[in-house]
């Protein structure tokens, strides 16, 4: 079994309010960076598959040199190998250039059974890259996966439960496939100290544009991006001034609140 986990280094969610529009435009966020929380579920799921079936887990990311820290976190949790895709020439890509580059890198990593990733990232929030990666790899995509029901690495099949709006959908697909997981699939483990030791010492390969066979530079670079962000801004602050409802009894407070809500026509 070989699972490749695509992950991203993102701002610590507690520090997201510190993100300023100017920093987003210049790509210079002054925040602590962590592994995207959704991707931790993907790492955990890959490790559980390894524990159940043997094999190995490779962590893969695209980002600046600092993104190796995210890969080290994945190794500290138990991933066996890691690859960083990093090159100024990638520029500020989007779901299409990144999906294309990840797909080419995955091909170069070699034989694999599964590509796992989180539902979305807490910075871009688009949830597109799992899909673009799957399409560029021409393999099935299974999103919103909350449980891997069965997986057979000999017959190359997988059956998963997907949590969609109406309920749980059970879907089977041939392997290899891209599996995007959601919270609820598992409880990610902490890195072990033994894992931390391994991770701190691991020489993690860095692949630039020229190191990925068959990568067409004009599809991987920022120039190929399909969309552009503009007018980046803080959302309007909530104008609300909180009215604290005070009264002698709870019943009276409830009555006043009900009056306010009816007047606001929200109930």
């Amino acid at each position: 079994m070989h699972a490749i986990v695509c992950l991203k280094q993102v701002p610590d969610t507690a520090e997201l309010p510190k993100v300023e529009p100017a920093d987003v435009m210049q790509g210079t966020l002054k925040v602590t960076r962590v592994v995207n929380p959704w991707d931790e579920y993907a790492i955990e799921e890959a490790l559980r598959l390894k524990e159940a079936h043997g094999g190995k887990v490779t962590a893969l990311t695209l980002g600046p040199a600092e993104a190796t820290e995210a890969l080290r976190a994945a190794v500290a949790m138990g991933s066996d190998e890691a690859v960083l895709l990093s090159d100024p020439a990638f520029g500020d890509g989007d779901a299409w250039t990144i999906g294309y580059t990840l797909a080419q890198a995955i091909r170069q990593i070699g034989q694999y059974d599964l590509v796992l990733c989180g539902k979305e990232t807490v910075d871009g929030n688009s949830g597109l890259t799992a899909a673009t990666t799957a399409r560029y790899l021409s393999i099935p995509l299974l999103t919103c996966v909350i449980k891997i029901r069965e997986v057979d690495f000999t017959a190359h099949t997988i059956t998963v439960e997907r949590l969609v709006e109406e309920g749980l959908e059970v879907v089977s697909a041939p392997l290899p496939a891209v599996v995007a997981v959601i919270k609820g699939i598992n409880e990610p483990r902490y890195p072990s100290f033994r894992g931390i030791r391994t991770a701190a010492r691991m020489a993690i390969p860095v692949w630039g544009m020229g190191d990925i066979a068959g990568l067409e530079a004009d599809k991987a670079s920022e120039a190929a991006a399909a969309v552009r962000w503009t007018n980046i801004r803080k959302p309007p602050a909530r104008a609300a001034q909180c009215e604290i409802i005070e009264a002698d009894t709870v019943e009276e407070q409830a009555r006043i609140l009900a009056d306010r809500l009816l007047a606001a026509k929200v109930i």
Partner: protein
Amino acid sequence: MSVFVWIEQFNGTPVSLSWEVLGKARQLADARGTTVAAIVLGQGVEEIARQAIGYGADTVYLADDATLASFRLDPYAAVLKRLIEEHQPAILLWGGTSRGRELAAAVSADLGLGVAAECLDLRLDDEGNLVATRPIYTGNILTDVVFRRRPQMATVRARAFPMPEADASRSGEVIAIPAVLREEEIPVKVVGFEQAGTGEVSVAEANIIVSGGRGVKGPEGFQPIRELAAVLGAAVGASRAAVDAGWIPYKHQVGQTGKQVRPDLYIACGISGAIQHLAGMRTSKVIVAINKDPEAPIFQVADYGIVEDLFKVVPALTEVLKERLAR
């Protein structure tokens, strides 16, 4: 160069978000003096095609085929891809559901197009190009997205646009189109389905959400919250703390690793208002906070606050609303 909208259905029932998107598409098309085409895929879904005309479509492309009965990426994307190549719409919009996001992303990769995901607003610039506004950094930043290629595609978040009025007298053309893939060409099989709890309102589409946090203290603490929700016809939400403690299933979670919601009314009970939670609900129209701790950050985003034990306030509010709403 018309505006296309994918009309999503599940088991033959249209997803109401699709009508919200169709209503917006109608506005955009009218602004440009162009037409709206709806795309309906499924099996036995002609009725949905007719409804689409009522909600504003001029044309409906209807692919009715057994291979399209349940949503699957490959056969759906193949139909969409062919339609786009044939008709070259200027804009293609999708509801931002689990299926809509996935399908839009796949089609975009197949055709080398861009998608703006989870949009809160759509408008046309002076040249008639689509400008899509969407939240990034989990709601802490807004950006406009502009497109380098056409069609310009966007998925739209639930409740970003109002539900349009259906007009049964509108007329339009339903054009049947074939499926593209045969069953044996489709690798993914849907082998089962379990319905979510019946009668439950999902937080993503709810007009009103009553949410509980750490202050509910246990699974049984959600009972008064459910009772209030029942009176209001509201969905039950929860903070991450309550979900992680195992008091309520994950599908109820609102916030950064849960659902991003924007109901008309959000009642936060015993929720302190961690940054990650606020990120998921701060765009709600009216926010009520019920919390014992007067310094809880939730009061900073609330319109109305009651500093008191939720186990006293929530049942009292339920009783009052039972009387008021019974009229």
